[in-house]
């Protein structure tokens, strides 16, 4: 368990450093929180940098490893924790769209799927202009907060 956690952290840092740059969109720091037993949903997070001079839109996501993937946002309003599905997200030119715990995340439905630290989940992100991008999200220990050095 601890070895797995350490290995996934090293992989996470290594893959994050070698981010895949193409088409003006950088997709990096992709990770999934390990699923506690019985959890039918897990959350995945990525960071998307729009290096282009036009705004881009993230339309949807899917995964061969999951039954469904939805873009969601958590927020606290008057002390009430709410989560809701978000249609599409606009990323202005030059801007960074950060998904993180307590905010935007992909809600992955993977009943019966054993998503444990050290594993990987493939994500396919659909953008406007017909652009589709694949990314391997590393499964991080449940205590991982996404905070980067």
């Amino acid at each position, binding site marked *: 368990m601890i070895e797995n956690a350490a290995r996934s952290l090293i992989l996470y840092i290594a893959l994050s450093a070698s981010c895949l740059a193409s088409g003006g969109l950088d997709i990096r720091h992709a990770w999934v*929180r390990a699923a*506690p*037993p*019985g*959890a*039918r*949903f*897990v*959350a995945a997070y990525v960071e998307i940098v729009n290096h282009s001079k036009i705004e881009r839109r993230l339309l949807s996501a899917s995964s061969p490893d999951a*039954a*469904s993937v*939805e873009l*969601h946002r*958590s927020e*606290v309003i008057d*002390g*009430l*924790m*709410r*989560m*809701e*599905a978000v249609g599409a997200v606009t990323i202005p030119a030059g801007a960074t769209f950060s998904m993180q*715990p*307590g905010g935007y*995340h992909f*809600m*992955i*439905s993977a009943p019966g799927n054993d998503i444990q630290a050290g594993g990987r989940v493939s994500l396919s992100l659909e953008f406007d202009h017909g652009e589709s991008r694949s990314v391997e999200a590393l499964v991080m220990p*449940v*205590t991982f*907060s996404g905070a980067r050095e």
Partner: protein
Amino acid sequence: MKQSSPNRRFLVIAACIALASGTALGLAVNHLSTKQVLANSIPGLLWPAPQALSSFSLHDQFGETFELERLQGKWSFLFFGYTSCPDICPMTMAVLDQVNDLLSAQSTEEQLQFVLVSVDPDRDAPERLRDYVAYFDDSFIGLSGPDANLQELTRQLGIMYIPGAALDGEDYLVDHSASILLIAPNLSLIGVFSAPHDPKDIADRAARIMSFFNAKV
């Protein structure tokens, strides 16, 4: 002049009494305000009137009855969530795990317990909660029960939960209060930690609340 002497003596005594009681009163007021000033310096501490909890009846992850008495004599951290919640709940459970580590490392004599109260009784049966809470820490407690029983606890604590957005199939989300509550060993709601939650911050404030509480009692 001679006949005024008893009156004068009376006046002197009265003045002394007034001065002494005034000083005593002043000290008391001063003491109270110092206490309150200290209380105000601990964000999340509910003071001067922490609310006393009244009875409720739920069951834990082993199917055992869990009532008010199980909170007696311990510092209990309560969080309201559910196992199908992918983002905030596992994050908060992980925070509580770290708060537990941080406070345990301070080797206080306080007994701590960490309790997830499920706001999704239909799906969170004890068996599901058992595996879920143990994944974070063997000592963690998971509670659930029928809505009516659950509301005996949530209503008195000001906790809300509302079935939210429907998902594919039969799944749905539940909106719920995000705060972590701290119950003192005398069964009073003494602390509230609002989101976002930072383990170090919560551990620090909880430790201060405990010393504050113990100094008072």
